[in-house]
């Protein structure tokens, strides 16, 4: 049961933290349309997170609620990958981060929808419809910025170059993933690693961007070792529950 619980969080925490990052842009997007789009994506991800956390809370057997899981863990207990916690440095980073995650996310959901675990399969099946729309949006913008002006191209390239080192971690498998993968309930993410890089490269090329070649990658988030940004995210995210314990809306 512990493995299943951790496995659910490995998937769900990505959605929560990315939703929080996108939520920071509410009212601050570069244009009204992108502001609405990014917060819409945030809402989808948050909805998915709720479904996962409700499931995790139910199987934890400790009388937990979805809110406990979202708000009352310490940094080391969050299992999201490093990519999603990276800051909204500029619009190129927002789009780059989204794109690099969306391609992975959709591939994962497409496999997870066939999991014998009915709840995970149902969440994934529902999520696919949303995530494919996210991917359409982010790939569109990668192309638009990459193939735009000299400046937009340079900024998009900068973001991709900078975020590239976090992509390998998406395919790192934790103990929980290995255990659930063996049972056939979880997904062996390494099986679509090659396909991921192929698809990402294809879009980058179409966007007249250079596919990074650096082989230096960093990881740790999935095992709870986060970048310095994570503490600030949690300070914001958990503020109300930490300041007024057990408060309700």
């Amino acid at each position, binding site marked *: 049961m512990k493995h299943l619980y951790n496995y659910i969080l490995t998937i769900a925490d990505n959605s929560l933290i990315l939703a929080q990052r996108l939520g920071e842009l509410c009212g601050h997007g570069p244009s*009204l*349309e992108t502001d*609405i*789009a990014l917060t*819409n*994506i945030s*809402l*989808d*991800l*948050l*909805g*998915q997170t*709720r*479904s996962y956390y409700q499931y995790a809370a139910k199987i934890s057997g400790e009388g937990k609620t979805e809110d406990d899981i979202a708000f009352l863990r310490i940094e080391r207990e969050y299992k999201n990958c490093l990519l999603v916690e990276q800051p909204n440095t500029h619009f190129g980073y927002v789009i780059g981060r989204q794109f690099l995650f969306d391609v992975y996310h959709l591939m994962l959901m497409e496999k997870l929808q066939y999991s014998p675990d*009915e*709840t995970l*399969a*149902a*969440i994934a*099946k*529902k*999520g696919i*419809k*949303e995530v494919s*729309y996210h991917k*359409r*949006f982010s790939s569109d913008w990668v192309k638009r910025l990459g193939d735009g002006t000299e400046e937009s191209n340079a900024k998009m390239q900068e973001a991709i170059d900078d975020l590239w080192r976090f992509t390998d971690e998406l395919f790192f498998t934790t103990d929980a993933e290995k255990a659930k993968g063996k049972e056939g309930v979880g997904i062996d993410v390494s099986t679509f690693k090659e396909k991921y890089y192929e698809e990402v490269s294809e879009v980058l090329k179409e966007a007249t961007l250079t596919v990074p070649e650096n082989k230096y990658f960093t990881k740790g988030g999935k095992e709870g070792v986060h970048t310095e940004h994570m503490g600030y995210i949690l300070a914001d995210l958990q503020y109300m529950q930490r300041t007024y314990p057990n408060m309700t809306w």
Partner: protein
Amino acid sequence: MTLTEKPNIQQDLIPVMKTVSDPEIPVLTVLDLGVIREAIEENGIVHIKLTPTYSGCPAMDVIGDDLKKAFSEIGKKAEVELILSPAWSTDWISEEGLKKMEEYGIARPLSETADKDVLLGEKKMVKCPQCGSTNTHLVSQFGSTACKALFKCDDCQEPFDYFKCLK
């Protein structure tokens, strides 16, 4: 629509549920929207199974509360359960619902392929709910709520929402 996707709703519960509408699109009742998958009365308790349009749809909590309130007003207790499978589709919106939606100023969802074409901005097919022209263009793939995209009519110049096809 396959048989498993057909909702199981007890006939005598329908009038009460007709009084509950979508808080975001008040002209649509929850029945028009097709989000009620099951409604059965057992031992004096009404059991309702509700499915979200989108995972993060904030209207779902409100709809659940509104349903409970509507039944409590006639002295019945209702329990609402959120279910995810099978996933909601725009095909489940009733014809009456689609008509009400258009009258309200929201363009109805097109077929899956047509939807893709218009959201990629390749074809002009979405009909302006104000003047009926299809000379319209996509302003944003995301609109005022998760289920809608923003369009503008190039004939009457009115901006409007288009209900995205979800299958």
